[in-house]
Each structure stands twice: as structure tokens, then as C-alpha cells.
């Protein structure tokens, strides 16, 4: 999985109001529970998590669908079943004293199946981040871990 990480001094260069982000519009069936925990590790800095969602067509081209700000402990999202989505979890950190900010991404292709629910555990604790996707069949207490899939493997 290739990532491109960017760090920018001076917050304005990153958090420009014309960033082009739009709120993601859910599908009717909400099948993804995103549980988020962030802790920058310092009171002089903060970390914000968000999820960019892209649709993926049959030639593996992506189309931006919208962003969900992961500012609540749990967010419930609807993704189209049986169609691949490209999920980009973004962790943006900013330091108050240094007047700087940086961002790192975790991305994966993901195709929800009908009749199943998914729990996503998103963590950024003091510079260490992880994203874990668990699949649950409705009515079944077992959960199965979904391995990340790179976009190039589409």
C-alpha cells in the first residue's frame, strides 16, 4: 500500500476554506459503525480524524463521494453494498506552539456485502495509528477481520 504523507508548516496552507470537502451522503442502509479514538499525546497539539469516501468504477477509477468528520466516538455510515468503495482515513495533527500541522492517511478498498454489518476501529494515540475493519453477519456474534486492500490491487 502506497501512502503519501504530507506535513505542512503553517496551518493555513492545509486548512484552507476552499479545500473542496463535502459531506458524504449516506446510502439508505447504514452498514458501517466507525468507532474513533484520538489522542495527540500532548495538550499543545491536537489530532482530527476524518474519512474520505470514493466510489470505484469497473475500470478502478475513483470518484470522490464526500467526507465524514470522525469527531464523535461512533459514527454510523451507509456504504453501497456489493460495490467497491475506496476509504481514506485521514489523521490531521496540528501543533499550537509550532504553528504547524501534518497529515497521514490509511487507505483501503472495501466492498460491503448485503446482510452484513461492519465495525471499524479507528485509533490515533500519540503518533501511532491503526484502522481495523471487522465484518459481522447479521444475527451472528462472530466477527471476521477484513484485511486492507490496495487500490492498485483493484
Amino acid at each position, binding site marked *: *500500500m*502506497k*501512502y*503519501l*504523507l*504530507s*506535513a*505542512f*508548516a*503553517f496551518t493555513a*496552507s492545509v486548512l484552507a476554506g476552499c479545500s473542496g470537502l463535502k459531506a458524504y451522503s449516506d446510502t439508505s442502509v447504514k452498514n458501517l459503525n466507525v468507532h474513533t479514538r484520538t489522542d495527540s499525546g500532548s495538550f499543545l497539539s491536537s489530532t482530527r480524524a476524518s474519512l474520505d469516501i470514493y466510489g470505484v468504477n469497473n475500470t478502478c477509477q475513483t470518484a470522490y463521494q464526500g467526507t465524514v468528520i470522525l469527531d464523535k466516538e461512533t459514527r454510523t455510515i451507509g456504504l453501497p453494498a456489493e460495490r467497491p468503495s475506496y476509504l481514506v482515513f485521514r*489523521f490531521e*495533527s496540528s501543533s499550537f506552539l*509550532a504553528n*504547524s500541522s*501534518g*497529515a*497521514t492517511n*490509511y487507505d483501503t478498498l472495501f466492498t460491503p456485502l448485503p446482510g452484513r454489518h461492519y465495525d471499524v476501529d479507528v*485509533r*490515533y*494515540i*500519540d*503518533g*501511532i*495509528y*491503526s484502522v481495523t475493519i471487522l465484518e459481522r453477519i447479521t444475527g451472528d456474534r462472530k466477527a471476521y477481520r477484513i484485511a*486492507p486492500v490496495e487500490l492498485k490491487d483493484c
Partner: protein
Amino acid sequence: MQYRIILATVLTSGLFAGCAINHPQTAAEFRAAAPGATFGKKESFVVDRQFDDVARTFGEQAPKCLEMRVKMTESGHMHHHVVVTKYTPTVWVSDDSAELHLQFEHEQGVMAVSEMPENGYYLMVADASRLADNKTQIDMYRPSMGYDTIVRAVKGWATGDNIGCPDLTK
């Protein structure tokens, strides 16, 4: 930010190798140089975890978490400095030992002043060795300052306590 750019410049300029002009060209040379280097150290510990699990975690997490490019920008009133760094991890596993090598090269913003090995200068080498009683010996050859998140992440992969990825912008 500025600190990371300065540190990256220092590491590239040869000071990591004990103020010598030449950088280690192999993992073996890096192991020999790091403990006595100005900004290097060796750290050894034993984890209460089977070697096979440690080796598997190195193999799974290193390419996922460390094979990256990091772009760092610092700008002010009259300056704008961009550094692009490519990190390349390599994991070698044999029956009783595993090695995680992390190398880096600056693709933009920092000039290389000494011969660079294939895949970049060595930043860290972590060796895992099988011990009795389901324990594993870990020997890390690493920078003594900076890169704290990478060091903590690799320790987490060894202990199994925290299997996450380091934020390389930190």
C-alpha cells in the same frame, strides 16, 4: 517540523556515522557504527512473545506502515523549504532470526553528501532472535533522538502490545 528537517539533514550529512564522511553501506556496517555514533544507539531487550509471532508481525506491518513518502514543508516570511523523503523497509526472516531494515533517501530538499546504498541510508535495524521459553531477543540499532514514533511502533510490533503504524510526520 523545522527540527525534523534539520535532523534529516544531519543524518544525511554523515554525522550519524560518528562524524565520518562515509555512511554505512550495509546493515552489518550500520550495526557496527550505530552504538558509537553521535546520534545513534543500540537498545536490547527480551519480549515475552514467540519468535514466529514477532517475525510475522515485522513482515506484515513493515511494508504496510513504513513503505512511504513523506513530504515536509516549512515556510516563512522569505523562505520555503520542501523535503521529500522516501522510506524503504526490508524484512528478512530465517528459522531463528529476523531482521527489519529501514532505509531512507531524500528525493527533494536535502543533498546527499556521501555514497548512498541501494534503497537509501540506513535509519534503523531491528534484529529478532529466537530464545527458549517462547521469548524473543530484540536488538535495535537506531537514532538516539527523533523518530520516536517509529521506534515505539517497532517496539509495539515486537511486544505485540500495540500493532499500529507510526505517523512518519512526527
